[in-house]
């Protein structure tokens, strides 16, 4: 995983070893750009960067989770160059169902699919993330684990903590997604075109010796604070 990750043009596929810049990657890129445009129009998303700038350094964007479209909306609100190296972490049972979702998650977002039903001891999601991102990709994670049903931000699962413990150099960027729970609530299939607001907050890190509960609380507060701003 070393050779050509700085290939000019920033094609997503060129970063994956064993892949050449082929027509397939081109197509996935174009699909991605179109999809991002559609997603931004449909969600009417306004994007705010609060004490934070878009950057290609390795980051973990962690957001509240209320709808299946969250990953897509956060991903598409990033600038194209950053989008190319940012991969959502998503549930395998949802994103590998059917050819369309499989294509989107596999080729366009290059999502890291987590098997929620079967978590093995030596192949934890955190292992997978650390292996997959190597030293260049950023992640979009939803530490609540599942979608919350209301506008409130649920308690965070500990995965974020273990990820940071092994990679304390990763920049953690809190993201708040406003209104998505009204656009596509749990259990609904058809979206209602309300306006969303995506807020990116100031980066944070896991402090040396910070306890798990303390850290998760701090991270959750960072997301909740963005709602008030």
């Amino acid at each position, binding site marked *: 995983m070393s050779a050509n990750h700085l290939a000019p043009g920033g094609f997503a596929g060129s970063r994956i070893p064993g892949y050449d810049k082929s027509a397939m990657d081109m197509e996935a890129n174009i699909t991605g750009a179109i999809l991002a445009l559609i997603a931004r129009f449909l969600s*009417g998303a*306004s994007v*705010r960067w609060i004490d934070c700038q878009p950057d290609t350094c390795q980051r973990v964007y962690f957001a509240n989770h209320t709808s299946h479209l969250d990953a897509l909306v956060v991903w598409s609100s990033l600038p194209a160059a950053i989008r190319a190296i940012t991969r959502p972490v998503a549930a395998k049972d949802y994103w590998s169902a059917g050819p369309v979702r499989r294509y989107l998650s596999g080729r366009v977002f290059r999502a890291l699919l987590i098997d929620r039903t079967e978590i093995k001891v030596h192949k934890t999601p955190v292992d997978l993330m650390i292996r997959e991102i190597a030293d260049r990709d950023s992640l979009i994670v939803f530490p609540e684990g599942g979608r919350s*049903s209301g506008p409130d931000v649920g308690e965070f699962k500990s995965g974020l903590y273990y990820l940071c413990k092994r990679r304390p150099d990763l920049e953690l960027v809190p993201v708040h997604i406003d*209104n998505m*729970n*009204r656009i596509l*609530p*749990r259990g*609904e299939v*058809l*979206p*209602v*075109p*309300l*306006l969303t*607001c995506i807020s990116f907050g100031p980066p944070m890190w896991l402090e040396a010796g910070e306890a798990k509960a303390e850290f998760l609380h701090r991270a959750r507060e960072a997301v909740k604070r963005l709602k008030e701003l």
Partner: protein
Amino acid sequence: MDTETLGLVGFVLLLLIAATVVVSLLKRRASASGFDLAVVETFRVRVRAWWILFTGLAAAFLCDQYLAQYRAGQTVTVVLFGLIAFWALREFITLTPTRPGDHRALFWVFFLFAPLQFVLVGMKRYDLYSTLIPVYAFLFIPARVAMSGDTKRFLERTAKIQSGLLICVYCLSYAPALLTLEIPDPIAAGASATKAGTTVRLLFFFVLMTQLSDALQYAWSKLPSRHLLVPTISQTRTWEGLLGGAASVTLLGTALWWFTRPFPVWWHAASTSLVIALMGFAGGLTMSAIKRDRGVRDFGTLVEGHGGVLDRIDSICFAAPVFFHLAHFLLTGEVAPTGGR
């Protein structure tokens, strides 16, 4: 294009250019002498919105002139207003607290009732578009919400959805509906060739007057003598603004009578201008009340960068149905079109 339309377009263009020049001058002075920056900024945003609004309208009219030969001479303008209404409704409902139980009802509101209203306007079916939302959507929304089984603040929730649909979609759709009117042409009596031009001027006159009335009421309210109308809602709306604004808009409308010319006599232009000023005021005040209640300054504040479409069109929404009926009455002697096609 006939002389009157050209005159009207020229007048608007001159106004816009003058406003743009004034803005850039004010901006320079503001940075030099500590002139009220907020006022200049408000004005700048308004002028930009006007450019977009009038350029969009003019482009739509031109496309429609071309389409007129296929007997579809209002399609583009109707679609343009439909898109504006859709966006305004998005802003309205986004700021209105709804619950998951409202989801299905909202889906039909956005994807059935809002588009259908404008389709019916385009089809000139006054009998249908005048009842679709106040009757059928009115009955559908509470029934669909009730089926979700969520009864919390039931009446309040359905009323909010209904108001949004009525204000943003139903009322606004009366503006492009002006294009579908069958009115006698005062210039070339009996000639059907200029008929399209007449209704286009009617709509253009209407939009121009709502925007002028907004601007003039704001300008008059900056007088040193200030008697606030409703202090709990607005610190900018004063009696001076309302009276001065209404009077000057009426005068301006009368002065523009020759250019607008859908009306055969001058006092038609005067009375419709006065009504536009009063309804525009009512629209602005009502929307301010809603915004106050929701604790925001603009419908645009939630959606930074989108500028708040609803903030710009509130006066059009309120004035459109009243102007539609009044103009129709003055021109034909009937308050509303009779029959279908």
